[in-house]
């Protein structure tokens, strides 16, 4: 199967059900549009829109303390916003599952996306987050499931980073 034929948003949505993840905290990204719509349309899933991604780190921690599994979905620029917030799951050994769609990689038109798109993953790694770079649509859902199992099984911070080559580049033409 070619990468483009894989419906990774539907696969992740299905995997969420299998993994007991029924709460989404998000600052949206174009690359997440279909997945977020699937989640919004699913009566079993609650989607909470944030003003900034760091709120999502707190929300995930609180939800898990209360026995509920959540995932933070964001654009790569959100990586920069969550740095100090990661102290909470990090120090407490609380699961923190993140899914980021990447900007600022090959084909990017907007240079302001490049710092977080290229160096954000290294920032996460430096802070103890396990990053799974995914450059093939067929590999997104398996990476997500593995990250979720590591996060919720071991109390770890895990990030699945979906490459721009999977989501496509943003057009700036009118």
């Amino acid at each position: 199967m070619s990468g483009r034929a894989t419906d990774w948003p539907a696969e992740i949505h299905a995997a969420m059900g299998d993994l007991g993840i029924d709460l989404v905290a998000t600052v949206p990204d174009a690359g997440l549009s279909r997945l977020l719509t699937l989640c919004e349309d699913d009566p079993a899933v609650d989607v909470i829109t944030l003003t900034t991604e760091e709120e999502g780190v707190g929300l995930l921690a609180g939800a898990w303390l209360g026995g509920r599994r959540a995932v933070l979905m964001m654009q790569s620029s959100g990586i920069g916003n969550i740095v100090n917030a990661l102290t909470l799951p990090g120090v407490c050994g609380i699961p923190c599952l993140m899914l980021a769609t990447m900007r600022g990689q090959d084909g990017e038109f907007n240079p302001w996306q490049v710092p977080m798109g290229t160096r954000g993953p290294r920032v996460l790694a430096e802070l103890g987050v396990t990053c799974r770079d995914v450059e093939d649509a067929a590999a997104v859902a398996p990476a997500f499931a593995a990250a979720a199992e590591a996060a919720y099984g071991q109390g770890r911070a895990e990030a699945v980073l979906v490459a721009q080559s999977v989501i496509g580049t943003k057009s700036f033409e009118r």
Partner: protein
Amino acid sequence: MSLLDNHGRLRRRPLVQALFAGLGGELVVTGLGAPSWDLAARGDRDRTFYLWGAMGLAVPTGLGLALARPGERVIVVTGDGEVMMGLGSLATVAAAAPRNLAVLVLDNGEFGETGGQRGLSARGVDIAAVARAAGFAETLTVAGEDAVDDLRRLLFERPGPVLAVARIAPGEDAKVLPPKDGVVLRRRFRADLGLEQG
């Protein structure tokens, strides 16, 4: 211990004691600094989750907890500086509209833990008005001795999300420190709720 100081201002420790001495099964999240010491002084308990850092995340953490435990009351106790760092989260909470979430802001108008530098609420920023504008179900600002009954009613009984600002006297109380080991805090919190450690 008198609720008011010599200038007629609310004192944080007796206020917290009066509000929370009778805590039952409520789930409490405290913002970093003095609110954590206040709740520890009231008497440490497994169902209080103290933040020692991650400034700005007390309200978002309370929101996540409220969404996970809709049948239980969640009370966030934090300071004006802490809530100001996460001011946007008041909008997030208002939009999510959890009926079981209450926020108490102990507002002394200063950054108490870092030397008492003047904060934004002392320069006219009204946190309760921000919450009201965002869409909280109810807000309250109190400053005097008659505060306790109104605060108790709002924090424990009224449909959320609700937010109360208690204008309190500045100055530091004796530090009463809760456990700082985050793994201990989260393990005992989940254990008290009968949840596996994961």
